[in-house]
Every structure is written in structure tokens, then in C-alpha cells.
């Protein structure tokens, strides 16, 4: 370890020690001074998440993406979970200065720190999932999850008997709001008189709060409930399971990742982002020099977003619903189907 390195280590040693204790996984040793871009040098990729990758959802998908980059490109990988916004800049700094080529910052909340880090380290490329700000080396990766959420809404509209469906949302940020509006529109498309309600719990991980929010929706008569949270989704599935045990016919829908196997007894299907495929694809594009200066869109059209019915419940699907879903998919692919979208990327109309 060089002397310069040691000095720097002393500077952020305290913070990174905490971050390490808080769950750093992966192979980065942080010992290199500058990026080596020569042919054949291993690609070095880092992932930042603002929550645990054990959520079987949004962050778990990103972690799988990181592993896919290791397996596909032989990349050296490292993951760090940031606990507070105060750690964002520090995390970018530690990876960028250690010579990482690509940093995936998995969430809207990283966008401002990413722009700051991008200015300071022009050699690094930062991909911000659901980000809203663009620069030469900061690229928002926009998952058009509203497309999957719209399809999930159609399923909810077809399955509801009470005519009430609901969503338990995490924090009301533009990407999450987009999935909610599309879910509502999808439910309306299938059943025009449906009443849809959303409850925001102000947290992505609070399982108990998500469960109470779902129980309150069920109490109001909602019988198909989707979520857009991270680990808190377990609370929604648990609430639905307990309601079923009390004899109510209630269903849940998964989001962000294929969660059908998480609670196969209560989940009708999941609106999925194939995050790993998007990570691999954007990395391939980046190697070809085609990433930077503009957002990167990933939706149904390029195979990243979809709705996946739960194979254990597919028999319960009405045949015409499956036909409607296929028609909607075709409309999404050729752009003829208009669905609500919340645009949040600056200057890109995205």
C-alpha cells in the first residue's frame, strides 16, 4: 500500500469501517491508485444500495446484476450499502478514487451525489438507477416499471370481486408514483368502475408498517394488493396470508423482481424488472463507448420489464385476461398503448 493510499485510508477509514460492519460484500480490495483502461485489464464494477440486498426485490435484483457482471465480463466487483445520505458522497469517492470503472448507484436518491462525484472523477462512469440527472459520465438508467405495473393492474382489475384494489407504497418519489398511476390505469382498463387506493408508509423496509397498511386496505374492502417497497413487501404478503386464513379471498401482487416464489400461495404474479439483464446490457453498451450524456431506457420493449404470472396460480387466470395481457404487451412494444408515466429526467422528456 502506497503512502498516499495510507493517508487516504486514514481519512475515510472510520466511515468505511462502519460501512464494512454494516454489510459490505464483494471482492474489491480498494488498493489500486488509478483506473487501468488497457486492453485485458479486468473491468472493475461497484454497486451502491441504500438498503439491504436481502430484500428479495429491488436491491436483491441489483446484487444479482452485479454478480452477472462478474460472470459475464469477469469483472472485479464490490458492493457497499450506504446507511445515510451523508455516506453517498463518501461511497462514490472511495470507489472512484480506488479506480473503479463503473459504479451502479441503485436508486433515485443517489442522483445529486452522483453528479458531484462525476464532476470530480471524469474517468469513472456512474449509472444511477431511476436517476433524474444527466451528465457526460452520469447516466440515469430508467426502468420503465410502469409498463409492468400497468399489466399487474390489469390482473388486479380482472381478479377483484369487491371492485377495490390497493397499493402499499414506500416513499412517494416520482418513479414510485409512476408505478402507482399505471397500476390504477391498468385496473381501470380491465374493470372501468374499479376503486384504487394507495397507502404510502414512508419507508422501504418497515415490514410491520407495510403489514398494517395492507390490513387497513383489506379492512376497506380491497381484495387485490400490490406493493412498491423493498423488504417491507414481506409485510404485505403476510397481511394477505392472514386475511386468507380468516376466510377472505384476497390476493397479492409482487413488484420489482419476480417474487412469485417468495409467497407462492398468495401472489398472483409480479411486475418485474430484469435488473441483471439491464446491468449486463448497459455494461456492454458502455464498453462499446455508447453510454453517456443521455438516459438509458429499459422497458418491455427491450425485454427488461414485464409482468410474470405466478405459475402456481396461472390456472386461476381467466382466459380472456391472458389475451388482454398479450394485446397490451404488443401495444407497449409498438408504442400504440398509452399508459401514465411520471417524467422525472431533466431535459430528456423521459
Amino acid at each position, binding site marked *: 500500500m502506497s503512502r498516499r493510499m495510507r493517508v487516504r485510508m486514514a481519512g475515510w477509514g472510520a466511515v468505511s469501517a462502519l460501512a464494512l460492519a454494516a454489510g459490505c460484500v464483494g471482492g474489491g480490495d480498494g488498493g489500486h491508485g488509478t483506473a487501468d483502461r488497457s486492453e485485458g485489464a479486468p473491468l472493475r464494477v461497484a454497486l451502491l444500495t441504500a438498503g439491504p440486498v436481502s*430484500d*428479495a426485490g429491488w436491491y436483491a435484483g441489483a446484487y444479482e446484476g452485479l454478480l452477472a457482471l462478474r460472470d459475464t465480463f469477469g469483472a472485479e466487483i464490490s458492493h457497499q450499502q450506504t446507511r445515510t445520505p451523508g455516506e453517498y458522497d463518501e461511497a462514490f469517492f472511495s470507489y472512484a478514487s480506488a479506480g473503479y470503472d463503473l459504479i451502479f448507484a441503485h436508486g433515485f436518491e443517489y442522483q445529486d451525489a452522483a453528479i458531484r462525484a462525476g464532476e470530480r472523477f471524469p474517468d469513472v462512469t456512474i449509472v444511477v438507477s431511476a436517476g433524474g440527472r444527466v451528465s457526460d459520465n452520469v447516466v440515469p438508467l430508467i426502468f420503465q416499471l410502469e409498463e409492468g405495473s400497468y399489466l399487474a393492474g390489469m390482473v388486479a382489475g380482472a381478479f377483484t370481486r369487491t371492485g377495490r384494489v390497493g397499493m402499499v407504497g414506500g416513499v412517494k418519489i416520482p418513479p414510485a408514483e409512476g408505478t402507482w398511476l399505471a397500476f390504477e390505469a391498468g385496473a381501470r382498463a380491465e374493470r372501468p368502475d374499479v376503486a384504487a387506493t394507495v397507502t404510502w408508509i414512508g419507508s422501504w423496509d418497515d*415490514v410491520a408498517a407495510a403489514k*398494517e397498511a395492507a390490513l387497513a386496505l383489506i379492512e376497506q374492502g380491497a381484495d387485490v394488493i400490490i406493493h412498491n417497497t423493498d423488504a417491507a413487501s414481506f409485510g404485505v404478503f403476510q397481511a394477505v396470508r392472514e386475511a386468507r386464513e380468516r376466510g377472505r379471498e384476497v390476493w397479492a401482487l409482487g413488484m420489482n423482481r419476480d417474487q412469485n416464489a417468495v*409467497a407462492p400461495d398468495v401472489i398472483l404474479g409480479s411486475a418485474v424488472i430484469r435488473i441483471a439483464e439491464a446491468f449486463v446490457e448497459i455494461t456492454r453498451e458502455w464498453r462499446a463507448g455508447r453510454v453517456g450524456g443521455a438516459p438509458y431506457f429499459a422497458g418491455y420493449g427491450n425485454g427488461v420489464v414485464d409482468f410474470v404470472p405466478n405459475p402456481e396460480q396461472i390456472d386461476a387466470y381467466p382466459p380472456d385476461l391472458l389475451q388482454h395481457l398479450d394485446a397490451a404487451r404488443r401495444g407497449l412494444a409498438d408504442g400504440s398503448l398509452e399508459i401514465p408515466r411520471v417524467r422525472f429526467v431533466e431535459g430528456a422528456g423521459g
Partner: protein
Amino acid sequence: MLEWGALAAFLAAAVRVGTPLALAALGEAVAERSGVINIGIEGSLIAGALGGALGALAYDSAAMGVLVGAGAGLAVGVVFAFFAVVLNVDQIIAGTAATVGGLGFTGAIYQARFGATGTQLSLPTLAPVRVPLLADLPVIGGAFFEQAWTVYLAYLLAPALAWWLFRTEWGLELRAVGEEPDAAAAAGVRVRWTRFRATAFGAALAGVAGAHLALASAGTFSEGMSAGRGFIAIAVVVLGRWHPLGVLVASLFFGAATALQFVLQARGLAVSYQLVLALPYLLTLAALAGWVGRARAPAALARPWPETES
């Protein structure tokens, strides 16, 4: 308007949300009465949640889960107390370390045991137990007396702790340590030992609160599922004015505010849910400012003993 059935459902939710707060806050109140502010109970809570889940899985029994959860919370509390009480490290710093460490360690253990990308566990859960007669009361019966037994533990602990703190010699000693540790020491009370035990007791109760969260509320463990309840419990202690009965009522009030905003949103009412959530905190501030009765912290709270000369 709220019909009776909806009111009963709302009250039941308030009790469910308030119970982990009550258990953690009752323990914290005892620790604070002895002069130790343990902001590490968040760490004990999450350790209790993981301990509860692992214990319930290992013994296929939710009750054993609660016991293991209490032990896990206690373990975190003993580490905290060793630094804060025995070594006289600043209590806030030691508590922060206990919280950060608890969140980190539980995550690492969970991922090592169940895989990095996580899954929903199917745990033996704490099923609701009907209390004969009381559960038949209209509206409040089901809400208050058809709950997991950890809820009844909170009901019973509050008066028991109130009696213990204010009617027994041990309780007097504990309070003396929290108010005038020098005088207590002069009277022959072992100040550090008393504080150590009070802190350990509080942490074990926080562990029970965490186990309740995993086994009665969520039915699974997930990283970070304590979601700041340890810190809310510290506010609950203030609003409850460091009195166990007050703490029980205050935690139900916090639970009611949370449950209310879920009901309002589920009804599609355009009320700012952030405002509803902020209500108990505004009351806590009012209590601290002396507008809601007299709220005075134990005089030696957060002060190390023996105090170093400066």
C-alpha cells in the same frame, strides 16, 4: 364516519403497532431511571427480531423465539453497558455504536444463513390469544384482549414496574442512582452494578419487542425491520414522563397515530399523513417543554459515574 367495526379494527391496529414500542420503552424507562440513556436499544430490537426468528425456527416454537430474542437483545445491551457503565464511555456514542453494530451484525448473520438476496421466512407466529370474558367486551374487547401474549406482557409489566420502582426499596435505590448517584453511593448502593442491571433489563425487553415484531407482526425477519422503533421508544419514555403507566399509554398513543394514518390513506382521504405521524412527536416536544404536565428527566441521566474532574 367510523362505524363500530372499523373503530374496533383501528384500535386493534393501534395496539399492535404500539406494543413493540411499549415493551422497548418500558425497558428504556427503567434504564433511564437509573441514569443511563441507552440509544442502543435499536440495536437490541433488531437483534431481538433476528434472535426471535432464529429461535422460533430452531425450536419450532414462537415462545422459544421470544426467549432467544430477549437473550439477543440482552447480549447487545450487555456490550453497551460494559462500555457505557463499566468503562464510562459517553452513553450517546456507545449507544450509537450498539445500534449501528446491531443493524450490521444482524444483516450479516441473516445473509450468511438465508442467502444474500433474502427470502420471506415462514416462522411459527405468535397467534392471538383470547382473554376469557374481557375479549367479549364490545368494541374494545377484541382490540385489547385478542392479541399475542406479548401484548399482555406489556399490560402486566407496566403496573408491575410502577410498583417496583415506586413502592420497593430496590426501586428507590435505582431511582436514587439516577438522581443523586453520589448520595446513593454514600448510602451504600452499588451505583454501577445497579445501572448495569437496569440497562441489561431494558435491553432484554427491547429484545422481546424485536421478537414480537418478527413473530407477531411480520411473520418473518428482514434487515432493518426495527425501522427506528428504538428511537421512537426513547421519545415515548419522555411523553410517558418516565413512569411505566405513562409509558404504556404514550406508546398506545404513538401506535394510534400510526394506525390512524393507515386508515385515513386506505379510505382515500386527502389528509397529509406526515402531519398525522408528526402529532405524537409534537406532543412529546410539548411534554419536554412542560406544557403537558411536568416532565423532568432523572437528574443524573446520561452522566457517567464517578464523574471525572474537569
